[in-house]
């Protein structure tokens, strides 16, 4: 999954450099939303903090 996020980000950059602004930003948004979901998947353990 993490490798897919890198791949999507690289594809977004390549598409952007090729001049397709809307498509590049669209792929970026997909990569960003998937990254948020993946971060949420990884931050479920409770923190050992006491106040």
């Amino acid at each position: 999954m993490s490798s897919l996020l890198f791949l999507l980000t690289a594809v977004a950059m390549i598409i952007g450099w090729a001049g397709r602004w809307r498509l590049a930003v669209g792929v970026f948004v997909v990569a960003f939303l998937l990254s948020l979901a993946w971060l949420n998947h990884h931050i479920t353990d409770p923190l050992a903090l006491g106040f």
Partner: protein
Amino acid sequence: MPRLVEFANLLAVLGLGIVLLAAYGFQFALGELPCPLCTLQRIAFALTAFGFVMNLRFGAKPAHYGLIILAALFGMTASGRQVMLHIVPGSGAYGSAVLGLHFYSWAFILFGLLVLGVAVLLLMGVPAAGTRHQPGVPATAAAFLVIALVLANAVTTFVQCGPIECPDDPTSYWLFSR
């Protein structure tokens, strides 16, 4: 695009390339495999680089800066979470320290500096809509470098983690331990 703004965007792309290269240095020279949160921070650096690359290609736009800020806030969340995991004395740390701070602490600071830098660049203004922009050779070289590094991360992350998920405390490469 004013030359100073273009130069700052070029420096940002190169700086993010250096960050990704430094992470590779620790991974391959010192054998410190990135944990899932560490990998997410690398992804956040790649996502911030996207906005700067778009500025180099199309000229500075508020939308590109907005994407950079979103990606940097995502990176601050991932790195801040890892700082919180290790902030209690005796709770250990992950990886080597550089100048007394671990990578996730440096990442948190760098993402904050990126937000600050973007605020300064926005204050310097953006070109009027419709202004033609042609990237030069240094901008093209910097963009290709960071694209190559992000693609390399896609490959090495797959070699380390496989198609689904990295272990919390990785000690070997998924592809070589099958």
